Each structure stands twice: as structure tokens, then as C-alpha cells.
């Protein structure tokens, strides 16, 4: 994965893009406990928010935002109304807007492209390419 240029305003950028206040999070962990894909993540969702609170850029290197499928389970349950799906999207956008794609479309076979539902392809490209 290519590196992202760092500056020290990660939290601000993510908050602006996501419209979320990361300080609303009181680290209860309910998001992580319910996330269907958290087993595959190297940082649990609540750790990502904590990282943002701490301005810790290493959260941008975790796979969490790419694993997140925007299923909104966390959003539905977060006691403090933090929409983590938006936070994850904002983090992805920080990459993608630098034209750093996360998947290589050319690796998909024509056969795969034909079989996969269109919504899967479009969604995936929109989430993972700039």
C-alpha cells in the first residue's frame, strides 16, 4: 500500500469529511463487539476511534477501514450516536482522493465480472477506488 502524506490534523480531516465528533465516543466497545467483520480487522473499530482521538496516524495503516462493509451495525447501536461507517468512509476517502486505489480492477477476470452482481462491483469500486 502506498504511503499517505502525513500532516498532524488527521482528526480534523476525518471529522470534517465524516461529519462525526470523535470525542463523542466514550470507548464502550459496543461497535467492535457487534461488528460482523471485526475478526478480520487488525485494529478493532473502537481502537480506530481512539486512535483518531489521539491523532495517531498509524490507524491509517490498519486494514480496518478496508474490511468495513458499511453494514451500519455499529451505527445502529452506538450509544453516543457516532456513525463509524462514516468515519471509515472518511478515512478511505483520505486515501482515495490522493488517487491511491485499494483494489486493482484489472485483476478481476471477465468471468468474475460477469457473474458478480452489478451492485457488488459498483459498490466495491466506489468504496475502494478513487
Amino acid at each position, binding site marked *: 500500500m502506498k504511503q499517505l502524506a502525513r500532516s498532524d490534523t488527521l482528526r480534523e480531516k476525518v471529522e470534517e*469529511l*465524516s461529519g462525526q465528533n470523535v470525542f463523542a465516543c466514550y470507548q464502550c466497545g459496543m461497535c467492535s463487539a457487534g461488528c460482523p467483520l471485526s475478526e478480520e480487522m487488525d485494529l478493532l473499530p473502537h481502537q480506530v476511534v481512539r486512535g483518531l482521538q489521539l491523532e495517531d496516524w498509524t490507524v491509517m495503516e490498519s486494514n480496518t477501514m478496508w474490511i468495513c462493509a458499511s453494514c451500519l*451495525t455499529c451505527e*445502529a447501536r452506538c450509544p453516543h450516536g457516532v456513525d463509524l461507517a*462514516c468515519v471509515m468512509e472518511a478515512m478511505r476517502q483520505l486515501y482515495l482522493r490522493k488517487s491511491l486505489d485499494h483494489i486493482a480492477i484489472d485483476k478481476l477476470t471477465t468471468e468474475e465480472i460477469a457473474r458478480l452482481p*452489478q*451492485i*457488488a462491483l459498483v*459498490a466495491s469500486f*466506489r468504496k475502494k477506488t478513487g
Partner: protein
Amino acid sequence: MKGIAYFPGCSLKETAKDFEISAIAVMDALGIPLIELKRWNCCGTVFSLTSDDLMHHIASVRNLIRAQEMESPEVVVLCSMCFNTLKRVSLRVNRDEESLTKINAFMNKELDYAGEVEVKHLLEILRDRIGWEQVSEKVIHPLDGVSIAAYYGCTLVRPHEVGIDDTETPTVLQEMIESLGATAVSFPFQTECCGSYQIVDRRDLVINRSYRILSSAQRAGAQVLITACPLCQYNLDEAQTELAERLPDYTSIPVLYFTQAIALALGVEAGTIPDLLAESLVGQEIPKKEETTR
């Protein structure tokens, strides 16, 4: 206008034809035919979650304009993913004059969108306008003795303001199943995500999730599972093909669109149904699994 404006979306024209075929047949039978929007386009599939990304909503707004052109106050959607996207966009722009003006200004070739079209899922029409009793009355092949699990996935119930039912304990699909004479199976994973578009490059992850969903439904006694999303349908079925290879004990269960189940019960065109299942559902001779009594 007799009938109701309808947005199909890309998948229903390609990989999920059965969903559309059965829905059209069912709605014809129920007397509210689906009238396809003219010149509709892809809704964009996912609602853009960033706050500054108004332009990403244009694709959806164009479709709302198509409904407006038909002078329809609403548009009905089948694919729950498209439903979610269109509904969220409609909530965002219908309520917010500023966004609406911006978007209208951007689409200079279009008629202005007035911000009034309501997005409905077909299940809402069935539940709130037609009513399950009405559906029941039209059943000619009751699906007696079949246990059907209701799988909602994410986009039908989340987020709360878009969901067509309670976020945690929805019942609309179970009500539908019961109206067809079948036994509705609720199971703990009915609103758990199947992994969604991760099928494109994280197949492993989707297979994993799907396995948990399918096995949970089977443990709860399901013989058939229904969904409202082409992607859920695909993911679950894909997973089953692979599971059948990997786990010798694994018995697959049919995954149908909810409209196919209604179509079977109403005796109208249901699209492709696994032969054995079709026969047994309609002929009511489906072999019962032991778990059903649990």
C-alpha cells in the same frame, strides 16, 4: 395512474432477473402493476457517507426526477441495496433545501427536482397498502409445512431512519411468510451482514459470514431462506457452493427472493426455482427436516 412507479436497478436486469420477473408477476396478480421508470440509471449502489460528497447523490436524484416526470409521488424499489441508497438520498435532499438547490444547479440538463418523491420498498407496499390478509386471500398454493427463514441483511433495516422495520427485531418478512401459509423462522443472524461487496476482493470473508448466517438459519429449522437483496442472494449461494465442496456434511438450502416465494404461493411466474423445491413447495411434499420441531 394504475400501478406504481418502479425502479429496477442494474442487478435486476442482469444477475437477479428472477427477482424482477417474480415481482412483476406478483404485483400484476395483486392488482398494482409495477411501471418501470423510463430512462432510469444506476443509483450509485452505495450512499456516499462523506459530508462533502453531494455530487455522488446526483445519480440517485436523476432517478427521482424520472419518477417526478411520471407525476408519481413515490417510487418503489425491490433491491434493498438500491432502496437504501435511493431512500437515503431522498431523505437528504428532500429535507434540505440547500443541498437540493446545489444539486439542481449542477444538473443543468435536467428538470429541477422538486424534492417530493418518496422512496418505498416493495415490502412496505405489500404490508401497508395491500396488507398481508389480501395477499393471503390470493394464495392458491399455500406453502404449508415449509419452514422459511427471513433474512434481512443490513440495508432493509439500517440505518434506523431508512429501515422499513425495527432495526433489531424486524418482523415484516416473517409476517409475509406466514401470510403464504408457511412457517416463519426467526433466527439470531437475520440482520447480520453477509459481507456485502467484499465478495469482490475478500471472498474468504464473505464465505465465512455466509456460513454463520446459513448455519444459524438451519439450526433454527429453516428449509428455505428468503432475502430481498441480489447481493445477499448471490453471496449466500456462492458460499453454499463452496461450503458443499469443503464440508462434506454441509447440506445446502435454497435461497430465494421473497417475491419468488410469493409468486409460488400465488401460482404466478416465479423465475428459476430449484426443481425439487418448486415441486415440493407447490406440491406440498417437501421432506421435513428433524430440526423443524425444535
